[in-house]
């Protein structure tokens, strides 16, 4: 009970700040919409090529963009925490009896809400302007999976940020990890097109399975292995992220 109240307090404080500056939510959408407009059309002729996974170009491409949106948006959340730490806000909260887990989870929850809004807007734009065809339930489930994935990355990001406590070391760490993880997940082009060795490496990357899962959702393959594996991997990542993040919040001398 106490934990819920504390989480709600931290969440509403963070949410209030985000709502005061909704420009960032829109700016975060700009990149995926540019991809949709400027890169998506290139995929249309390729969609019929041998090796391209089942589904239309948009059914393959939009899931990748959703994952990218969530991962990028969440992974940089740590920057805000470093600023808060520097202002003494984190330490001030750690002296209160509030649960350490709540200090993390309230912030993660705010990021999840932002990703849900952005994901819904991106899906809507894809359906209305680019002719993405997918059942309503699949679109909603896709946003839900991606939101949980975002939660995982935001928790990891907060944990890393509080460990490093410096933008100068945080930025290269996050960039250095994100780029290979995203390239190896078949976000832009399906990994089915890749040579054997690259596919093997990509199979180890948990994000590959999340992307594949959402793609399977969009072609209405609800009970397929991909959907089950993708959801399980997402929940697993979320668990790892939250455990790591709350461990840092509990241990770290902020």
């Amino acid at each position: 009970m106490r934990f819920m109240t504390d989480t709600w307090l931290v969440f509403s404080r963070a949410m209030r700040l985000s709502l005061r500056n909704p420009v960032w939510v829109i700016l975060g959408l700009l990149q995926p919409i540019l991809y949709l407009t400027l890169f998506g059309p290139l995929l249309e002729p390729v969609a019929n090529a041998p090796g391209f996974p089942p589904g239309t170009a948009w059914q393959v491409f939009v899931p990748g963009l959703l994952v990218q949106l969530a991962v990028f948006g969440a992974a940089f959340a740590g920057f805000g925490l470093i600023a808060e730490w520097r202002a003494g806000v984190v330490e001030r909260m750690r002296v209160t009896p509030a649960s350490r887990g709540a200090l993390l989870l309230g912030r993660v929850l705010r990021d999840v809400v932002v990703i849900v809004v952005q994901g819904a807007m991106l899906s809507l734009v894809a359906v209305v302007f680019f002719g993405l065809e997918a059942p309503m339930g699949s679109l909603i489930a896709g946003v839900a999976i991606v939101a949980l994935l975002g939660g995982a990355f935001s928790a990891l990001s907060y944990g890393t940020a509080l460990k490093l406590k410096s933008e100068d070391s945080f930025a290269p760490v996050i960039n250095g990890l994100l780029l290979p993880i995203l390239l190896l997940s078949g976000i832009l082009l399906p990994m089915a097109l890749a040579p054997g060795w690259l596919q093997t490496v990509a199979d180890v990357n948990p994000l590959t399975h999340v992307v594949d899962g959402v793609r399977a959702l969009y072609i209405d393959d609800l009970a397929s292995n991909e959907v089950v594996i993708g959801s399980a991997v997402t929940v697993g990542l979320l668990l790892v992220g939250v455990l790591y993040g709350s461990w840092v919040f509990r241990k770290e001398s902020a």
Partner: protein
Amino acid sequence: MPETMIVSRGLRRVYKTNRQEVEAVRRVDFAVEQGEIVGFLGPNGAGKTTTLRMLTTLLEPSGGEAMVAGSDLRLDPLGVRRSIGYVAQGGSTDPEVRAGEEIVDHARMYGTELSVARGNGEALFRQLDLDGMWDRRCKTLSGGQRRRLDIAMGLVHQPQLIFLDEPSTGLDPQSRANLWEHIARLRTDLGTTVFLTTHYMDEADVLCDRILVIDDGLIVAQGTPDGLKRKVAGDSVVLSLEDQRSTVVVAELVSHLEGATEPVIDGTEVRFQVPEGASALPMLLRAMVERNVDATGVQVHRPTLDDVFLIMTGRSLRDGAESATDRAAA
């Protein structure tokens, strides 16, 4: 409410760097009674903040134990957190958040009801001269206002014990004096026990009932400001006389004075130290009248805490600050 607010026994903290262990706090033993204002005095790097962070549950001690506000620091850190307030050295508010929201949210983290949190916050804003700042973003407040906001935040849940880390650093003289008034009022109005660190001698002198002097991770002296000063050096007395003949007479009188040091004759002046200048002087002056010697001037110079620190640690507070900066720069 416990009668003794802090009992620290052998508290120590070791930092492990790559190769070596650094003992930031070697051994800290002291007690703070309910309602006291106690100053923790020492140069930068002496272990003040580390001790404070241990006592406020932010840092786990490497050894020793402590009872804080009636709860065991190691066994019941949550109990400690519930009863204390802490105002950190570097501030505590988000520049983008409105002052009123910050203080209400903070109180709510202690489980305070929303309406009570708002009431307490508004009352503290009035008491700490923050009227009209409720809806202002923290970044738009002046340094002094923001510091007072930090202190209001530390008090909003009405803790029995408040820790203030360098409360007046960075404030102009007027704001400092103003802040001292507020801190002194905490005890008289609310019965709050105050434990503060400072490296300003005048602050410790004006504000504190008792002072703990820490140097290099050890408490090297403790007592009331006056007691400490008396213990280390007596008052310095300088008597100006009319001529050389008088100095010899006065020097002879001084040598009979209880506790006085060997008088030094310097031209027509006689200098000496005596434990209680204020009570020794009238006696001396009366004796001088009997011997027909007049003083043209009398100076009694009370020793400052700077003198105390110098004698206790072999260096002045300012030296300590400089060497700490040097170390940071190196």
